[in-house]
């Protein structure tokens, strides 16, 4: 049945599906994992770094991009589509600042990106954007925000979420481990993001990229060394807790 209703974006199937939008969600699953955590005074974005070709410049393969000084975004899916969305969002951030003399709220820019995506699900001759995005930042009132958008143009606020390959496994981990204690401090929130990624990332810390925004501070991207030291700390804690378990048995 799908075969007759999945060619044109503007055609509903008899049971109410927009197959092109659903197929775009499949394209998102082909991108590597990205996780977002909302802490009390910090927002964290962690991504699985894709292996780079030998002759390729590493710094041009980025999954985490700043949209403005106080907002940044990680995506999963089609790289080229992400570039277009990021460019449009950046222009919108500056346009808003110049017009209204206030920086955008995280919700505003998320709504802008989501509306852009939705428009492409309703015009013929165009296909939906094949990316999901995690948008994090702080509003003017100091509250941390994490939003997620998907190719259909829906957006929701989350405490923690994950997109891309293996999202299901990482989401289950977060549902079990996202607790008040786990995000009590900035350090704990960062550790939670790394632990979530380590569930699915092969070969550990060197394939992880991490970025944080603290209240009233710009985006900070962790160096490989910092991530390795965090991973080493997490593994040490894991070993110690396993030793304790064995002793108690």
């Amino acid at each position, binding site marked *: 049945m799908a075969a007759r209703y999945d060619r044109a974006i503007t055609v509903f199937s008899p049971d109410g599906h927009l197959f092109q939008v659903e197929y775009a969600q499949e394209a998102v699953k082909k*991108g590597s994992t990205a996780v977002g955590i909302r802490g009390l005074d910090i927002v964290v974005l962690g991504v699985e770094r894709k*292996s*780079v070709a030998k002759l390729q410049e590493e710094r041009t393969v980025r*999954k985490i991009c700043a949209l403005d000084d106080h907002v940044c975004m990680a995506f999963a899916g089609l790289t080229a589509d992400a570039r277009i969305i990021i460019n449009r969002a950046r222009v919108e951030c500056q346009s808003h600042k110049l017009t209204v003399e206030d920086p955008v709220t995280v919700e505003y820019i998320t709504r802008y990106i989501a509306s852009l995506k939705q428009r492409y699900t309703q015009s013929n001759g165009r296909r939906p954007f094949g990316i999901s995005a995690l948008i994090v930042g702080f509003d003017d009132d100091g509250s941390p925000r994490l939003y997620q958008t998907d190719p259909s143009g829906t957006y929701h606020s989350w405490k923690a979420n994950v997109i891309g390959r293996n999202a299901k496994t990482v989401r289950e981990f977060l549902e079990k481990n996202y607790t008040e204690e786990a995000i009590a401090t900035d350090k704990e929130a960062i550790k939670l993001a790394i632990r979530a990624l380590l569930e699915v990332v092969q070969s550990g810390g060197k394939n992880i990229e991490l970025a944080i925004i603290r209240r009233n501070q710009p985006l900070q991207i962790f160096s490989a060394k910092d991530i390795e030291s965090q991973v080493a700390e997490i593994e040490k804690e894991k070993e110690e807790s396993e030793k304790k378990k064995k002793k108690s048995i």
Partner: protein
Amino acid sequence: MATFFGEVVAAPSRAGVDDEEEEAAGEQREETPEDREIRRELGKKREVHILWNSKLSASTGSFTDEQFPCSKFILAIGHNSVAFLSSFVLNSGCWEAVGSVKLWNEWCRTSNTRSVLPTDAFCLFYKLISDPTVLLCQCNCYVAEDQQFQWLEKVFGCMREEDLQVTILSTCPVTDYKTPESTLTLPSPFLKALKTKDFKETICCPLLEQPNIVQGLPAAVLSYCQVWQIPAVLYQCYTDVIKLDTVTIEAFKPVLSSKNLKSLVKDMSRSGEILKKLVTTNEIHNNIYT
């Protein structure tokens, strides 16, 4: 003229015979020697050739005339299945390359110069040194429908089929899997099995449900085994990744607990390393998705 069944049939005309039409029809019906020559050449081009190396002939006598005894035949079709056998089976025992299949069809591409395999061979046969009745085949090429019968005849024709057990590994896109559930919730990759009537061992995954069907060389081999009453099982991995992928390869791991393969896997310590090497050397850097 259309019949009641919708077929178009040329009706004989009482108006008389049209000479021109009859001549043209006559030409079509008769094949010229040229046509026959072209057909013969095409047939020759699409022939399947099995080349056994001299070591095997020496050890088993001139086995182009005789069949060699075979107790286990493990066949991997497709690059993920082939990589699975390379990482988990071929490296944990002593195997010797004993032959290859050469064939050509429209799907064959020019040889990959980075490939470790001999450039002309597309299917490779390996024999276990400690037990020469165990034969393994890695088939990385597409065997077209008209070539499958030849392939089967020539490969199985070399084996003595008493006590033969066949295990086939292959992959299939998950989009071809028919299920009443939504494909978004399917836990791909996943394994499904299909076996012949004579296969009595336990299988390591659920059976393939109707109305799903198996196609291509795996289906041809399984059908052959069913007809000739050879116990055979096919493990098909439904995956959403078309290229070489570690997650898909590792989805075959339950097969290692099957009776046929359990005895062949002794040392898996290097499997991770070999798997990683296979995947990275074959990786075409795909920048479409990030």
